């Protein structure tokens, strides 16, 4: 046993070292170490110790710690050394297969749109057009291209249909669904947490712990919690400690500190090379036009531009999403994403691998509502390159799991199952009633979870929710919140008699306060 643990640990260490080697942090550390040789406190006899000490006091060790912590958070722990690479993407074969066929469908849809409209997937812009776009870069929202012929490649409800049909071929369902079985739409046997486990997992959200979103309301004296919490937050920022920040935000971020805290947790420092990289992406956008650009435009116009609060940030959304689709560094995340980037072939060279390219370059095809992942971030970050990096990191850590089929506990399948299980276990009467009237709860809550509630909650509440996503490095809180919302409106829902009526009861979430809802559901429900 001990041997396995050791080999597991040393494997993990080896992998992290591998990944950090050759990164800019590595070269910076080397440079710093070399530069420190001039310092008087570095002595030849104790060279190694002295340099280590120097790196510690100058804050570089902390930066290394943050980078390691970041790697630990993002990459899954290595499984058995003999496991093939697909296992890191997704260990279960039937899930991989399902994801594969879903991807085929999306691609088919994209290709047929392409052929129908006879628009190339990609084309180089003529010089005149490039100049024009460059001039208009910060106000692309004023453009009104004709997008009537474009349709989103898919919408969340199409994806839900696929998830509903997932079946584990090794699992025997029995003859009839009954109360002993699962009544919901998701019929795969994944392990999800129950309320006692969730209570333990989300222990910092308990009734006895101070929370922003509850204990900072107007009539609670700030001396009781808020002032101290802000002080601690400032200390965390001065220390520049990622791990401490992640622990801290579990109780919520003060508005003034949130931008920096999130950047610290996501390990984004906006170095000159990061800005350069963004500028490079921008020039890629200027030079080439992609079909997905039109999809992005359409999505922004349909969703964020119509939102009462996010319409202001329309221009930023283009600046982020157009660059996002050209960012090939995103391809790295496919090593732990069950999805595989679609491949396209240069015209006339179908099937020839030398002429294959990933399309879009980042491998992510946007769907209806995709721009809403970015919109709330515009509230916090105003400099396009920083906004871009934050979004990119959020995407490769969290958001990708919301639209790919996998067995990961934060994957959308597990979230749906968690939601349905919580509802069925704790509000069985409601669940049964809704099912009877043809209003399966997941049909309503699915779109909330796929978008991580963006566009459904008020912005300040959404940011409090996303604080906890970062704090716990998990999306499970989305499922818990969805169940809590149903529990909150249970009395209304018991009275409805149709799916449309149920939708109406749950149509407007903008008045909800998320933290009290979560607390009640997790800690004040009798289990």
């Amino acid at each position, binding site marked *: 046993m001990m041997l396995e643990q050791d080999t597991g640990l040393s494997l993990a260490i080896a992998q992290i070292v591998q990944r950090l080697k050759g990164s800019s942090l590595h070269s910076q550390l080397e440079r710093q170490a070399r530069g420190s040789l001039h310092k008087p406190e570095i002595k030849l006899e104790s060279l190694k110790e002295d340099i280590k000490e120097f790196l510690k006091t100058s804050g570089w060790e902390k930066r290394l710690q943050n980078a390691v912590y970041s790697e630990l958070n993002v990459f899954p722990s290595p499984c058995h050394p003999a496991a093939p690479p697909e296992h890191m993407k997704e260990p279960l074969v039937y899930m991989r297969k399902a994801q594969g066929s879903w991807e085929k469908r999306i691609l088919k849809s994209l290709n047929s749109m392409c052929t129908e409209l006879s628009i190339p997937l990609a084309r180089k812009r003529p010089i005149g057009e490039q100049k024009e776009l460059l001039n208009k870069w910060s106000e692309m929202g004023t453009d009104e291209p004709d997008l009537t012929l474009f349709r989103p490649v898919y919408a969340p409800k199409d994806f839900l249909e696929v998830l509903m049909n997932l079946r584990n071929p090794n699992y025997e369902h029995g003859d009839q669904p009954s109360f002993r079985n699962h009544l919901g739409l998701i019929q795969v046997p994944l392990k999800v947490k129950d309320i006692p486990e969730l209570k333990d997992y989300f222990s910092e959200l308990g009734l006895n712990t101070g929370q922003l979103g509850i204990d900072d309301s107007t009539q609670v004296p700030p001396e009781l919690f808020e002032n101290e919490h802000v002080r601690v937050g400032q200390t965390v920022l001065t220390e520049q400690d990622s791990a401490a920040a992640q622990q801290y935000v579990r109780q919520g971020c003060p*508005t*003034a500190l949130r931008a920096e805290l999130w950047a610290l947790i996501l390990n984004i420092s906006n170095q000159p090379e990061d800005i350069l990289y963004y500028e490079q992406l921008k020039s890629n956008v200027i030079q080439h036009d992609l079909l997905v650009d039109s999809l992005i435009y359409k999505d922004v116009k349909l969703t964020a531009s119509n939102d009462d*609060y996010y319409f202001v940030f329309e221009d930023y959304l283009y600046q982020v999403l157009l660059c996002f689709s050209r960012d090939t560094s995103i391809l790295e995340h496919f090593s732990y994403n069950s999805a595989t980037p679609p491949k396209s072939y240069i015209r006339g060279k179908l099937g020839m691998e030398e002429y294959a390219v990933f399309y879009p370059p980042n491998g992510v095809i946007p769907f209806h509502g995709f721009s809403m992942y970015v919109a709330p971030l515009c509230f916090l970050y105003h400099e396009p390159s920083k906004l871009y990096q934050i979004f990119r990191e959020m995407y490769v850590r969290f958001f990708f799991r919301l639209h790919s089929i996998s067995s990961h506990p934060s994957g959308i399948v597990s979230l749906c199952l968690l939601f349905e299980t919580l509802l069925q276990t704790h509000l069985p009467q409601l669940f049964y009633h809704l099912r009877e009237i043809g209003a399966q709860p997941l049909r309503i809550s699915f779109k909330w979870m796929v978008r991580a509630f963006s566009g459904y909650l008020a912005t300040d509440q959404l940011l409090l929710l996303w604080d906890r996503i970062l704090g716990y490095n998990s999306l499970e809180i989305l499922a818990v919140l969805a169940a809590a919302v149903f529990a909150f409106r249970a009395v209304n829902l018991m009275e409805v008699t149709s799916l449309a009526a149920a939708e109406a009861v749950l149509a407007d979430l903008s008045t909800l306060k998320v933290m009290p809802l979560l607390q009640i559901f997790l800690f004040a429900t009798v289990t």
Partner: protein
Amino acid sequence: MNVSSQHFCEIGKYYHHYCTDGEPEAQETKEPRACIRFKCALTNTILDILRRRPGWVEVKEEGEWDFYWCDVSWLRENFDHTYMDEHVRICHFRNHYELTRKNYIVKNLKRFRKQIEREAGKLEATKCDFFPKTFEMPSEYHLFVEEFRKNPGITWIMKPVARSQGRGIFLFRKLKDVIDWRKDGVRTDDQKDETQVENYVAQCYIENPYLIGGRKFDLRVYVLVMSYIPLKAWLYRDGFARFSNTRFTLSSIDDHYVHLTNVAVQKTAPDYDPEKGCKWMIQRFRQYLTAKHGAEVVETLFAEMDNIFIKSLQSVQKVIISDKHCFELYGYDILIDQDLKPWLLEVNASPSLTASSQEDYELKCRLLKDTLHIVDMEGRLTGKEKRIGGFDLMWNDGPVSRAEGNVDTPVNGSFMANTHLGTSLIRRWQGIPLKVFNCLRHHQKCKTYFSLKSKRTGCELSHSASRVLYSCEAKCEGVNIFQLWCVKS
């Protein structure tokens, strides 16, 4: 989560305690109510609010009234020869234009500034520098030219003194434009009908406005003045930021639509989409700034805005006829520049009460309801309150402190102003009569319901029978997790 009827009884106490916004407890105790006769010159939100106010009755054309929400033209023609009993109230001051007409406010502020400089020194006088340099035309034309020559290249804006909603305004950089305009007999299309020469002001144009999402915006804030002598003014916590639909750039001075952010002008812009709503509630704006600049910077900005409200009112205190029958709800337009300095653009005596969206309608309803609470025709207030609804008492013949206690409580420790613009509004439950609430205990009997029209989907469910159930989320102070049912019979 099981919400039983017993639960509702407890909520009943909660409701009873908090809902002191004018719902007739008298209905329960059967006291005779004097009814309040009102007249209203407008047909928008204010009329809805007045009609819904319990015990208030609308009077016909020539009937006697206790309360008149008049328009300024009526005031101009009739105020001087209308006799009003002591209890009667009217919503404008006779010569409010001292504050609201662009040339008068400039004059009053300049005079006030000089007075402060004499009494308290130069530094103190700089607190009045929130109004962009303005010159009356044509009387101060030569002074303007002098200033113009001192600062070549800056942009100026020419505004008619009396018109609102953005009409008749243009921007210029060259003196030549002004000279041409002066010589030009025909100024604008609609001016052909004017019989008198209209006064204009030339004002320094703020070239570095604070931008959000590349767009220019201004803030609309509401201030209620109950009297000028002594000065008693309330500041409303809610307000909004109005965005320009197009992106800000100085290169297109002729683009009327970029520079003027009044919603009225926005509505005629070619790409205006009424569904889009170019407004942010001021709470959202305050949160945005806090996330970007930190709480302290934002506190300073809002304190400077308080200063604008108070100084502007003080500057006209001595000239406005402070009739005890009058009160006035002003709409202040504030522009923030890139250094986070607030500038006063103008003060409106008749801020628009037409709603541009559902959220806007709700804001204006609350605003007007709270205004009527403060006017207090029903005589319920003690006079010592520091907060009524969404209004905070900002000035009561002296600064009002945020500290606990009412107006008379002495202040210990450091002074913090009693203004909370843009902080979370403590909402009251939207006035459902107590009689209605008692039916909650029998909620099991109610068979049908419909939910409030959702602002997102706009769908409404049909209902049948006379008993209708509303569900609302009581957004009372702090954590509110109870959902309540009301029955309307």
